[in-house]
């Protein structure tokens, strides 16, 4: 279909960048007190970008090697807590803590990827779900992570000047950083798809025994997918933590993991554009619905009802996701 081809390739990246940068900086140029784009609008845009990074990173595991993971928020939250603790307890500046968040996530991703070497399908879902919950309860019960209250008052990143002093609302620099990371990850994913590593991933997704008979070291590539996935999720988590200037164990909850997996599946597993689409859709929809609910005075939040309906409709009508290829999961 024409519209799908139109979204493919670099045009999507240029359009996204133009839109995001436009929204971010037009207010700063206009110099007017009543913003053209309210800060809330920019807040939602930034959250969309951060979840795009999370979805793209989950795509390594749930898209490329076709292993359903319900523990992705653990890596996300682990990155958030790592950089929070490094900056607060050890007084590290933001940038090294940001990188360390990715590295620590990746190192923890290695043993968490190990079960995926032996179990698959529904069993792996249970294992990853369990691992995610373990991390959540560790964060809830340790003193150093602040217990249920989390850690408030994280440092604001700076590049010569504090991120808060850039742009009209103080959110612009975060948006640019998130956009750069998301675009890099999209580029990286595309390059991997076209490389020998991408071939190995495809072989594992299709048939592990045949893959090993081709000479593909299945253990190595499965762990590689988990490590890459955890690394980028850790970066995204750190970025969100320092933007909100706050981390809480809620960032590690299974609801977050389910949301991230849904973004990948609804957008289209293995589709880079699909990950962006899924993240934007599932971030903007609940926000929009909350606004509608407030205006017309609904007594309940219609989001979860709609969420369930979307999932049922997707599985019925387009199980491969909106922008997905013909088949998503191995039959």
């Amino acid at each position: 279909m024409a519209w799908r081809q139109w979204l493919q390739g670099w045009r999507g990246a240029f359009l996204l960048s133009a839109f995001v940068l436009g929204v971010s900086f037009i207010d700063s140029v206009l110099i007017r007190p009543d913003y053209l784009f309210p800060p809330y609008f920019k807040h939602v845009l930034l959250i969309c970008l951060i979840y795009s990074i999370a979805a793209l990173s989950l795509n390594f595991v749930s898209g490329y090697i076709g292993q359903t993971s319900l523990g992705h928020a653990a890596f996300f939250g682990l990155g958030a807590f790592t950089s929070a603790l490094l900056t607060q307890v050890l007084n590290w500046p933001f940038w090294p803590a940001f990188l360390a968040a990715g590295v620590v996530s990746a190192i923890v991703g290695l043993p968490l990827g190990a079960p995926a070497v032996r179990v698959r399908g529904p069993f792996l879902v249970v294992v990853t779900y369990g691992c995610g919950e373990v991390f959540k309860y560790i964060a809830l019960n340790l003193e150093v992570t602040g217990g249920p209250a989390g850690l408030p008052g994280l440092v604001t990143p700076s590049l010569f000047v504090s991120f808060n002093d850039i742009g009209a609302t103080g959110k612009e620099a975060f948006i640019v950083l998130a956009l750069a990371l998301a675009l890099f990850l999209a580029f990286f994913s595309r390059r991997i798809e076209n490389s020998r590593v991408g071939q190995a991933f495809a072989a594992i997704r299709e048939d592990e025994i045949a893959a090993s008979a081709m000479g593909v070291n299945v253990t190595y590539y499965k762990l590689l997918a988990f490590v890459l996935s955890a690394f980028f999720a850790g970066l995204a988590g750190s970025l969100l933590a320092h933007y909100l200037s706050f981390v809480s164990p809620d960032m590690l909850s299974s609801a977050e993991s389910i949301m991230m997996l849904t973004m990948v599946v609804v957008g289209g597993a293995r589709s880079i554009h699909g990950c962006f689409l899924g993240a934007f859709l599932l971030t903007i929809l609940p926000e929009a619905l909350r606004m509608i609910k407030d205006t017309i005075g609904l007594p309940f939040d219609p989001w979860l009802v709609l969420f369930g309906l979307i999932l049922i409709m997707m599985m019925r009508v387009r199980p491969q996701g909106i922008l997905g290829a013909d088949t998503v999961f191995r039959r």
Partner: protein
Amino acid sequence: MLLRTEKLKKTFGGLIAVNEIDFCIEAGKIAAIIGPNGSGKTTFFNVVSGILPASGGKIFFDDQDVTSRKAHEMTSLGMARTFQNIRLFANLTARDNIILGRYSQTSSGLLDGLFNTPRLQRERRESEAKAAELLAFVGLEKVADHMAKNLPYGAQRRLEIARALASEPKLLLLDEPAAGMNPKEVDALLQLIMKLKDFGITILLIEHQMRLVMNIAEQVIVFDHGVKLAEGLPADVRCNPAVVEAYIGSEVQRFVKRKRH
């Protein structure tokens, strides 16, 4: 000796699937393993190709002890195989299946991918050229861009052989290549295997179609209940009373003999 096993054993719990098999095949030969269903032929293949670990005994490939090697290591040493129930990458195209068959012949990694290095580009070009060549060799050039799962059965079998050949093997293991084929397709397969022999590839196959086995095998090994029942030239094995008994049972054999007298 290209491949040699010494007292090779494989057990699943209390079941002895392969029991102390001594076997060897010389380079350049075609050997066939025959035997009733459940006699341990495919298990023997799986152990030799490293997909299942051996429970005892030793495997030598090219005079190297490869007993504890994994499947992906065996492929890079020069052993390729096909499967009894076709195991193609169903949602990839025929061409991509063969390019994946060349995986062990290429070596670029994650960073080559990220920077799209000359090595990756060269390997991609070489793999594509090799894939085109192999597709033409097995007569599938017209369906190169079709998904493997949409190909007819005979084409899938040939594609699986082409994929195995892509790794440039010294030894090719074929697990029931003629299963489900009509006589015409079996003839084409026979021609194909003879061509492979001319390329100097050693072939070990499991087969039930006696016409194929008797025509091309230079050495036949008979399995029954996990043990080697007989070994030798096709004509000798065919007359071996133990083999006949394993296949059609002693009662019938007695019946056949009585009728002859």
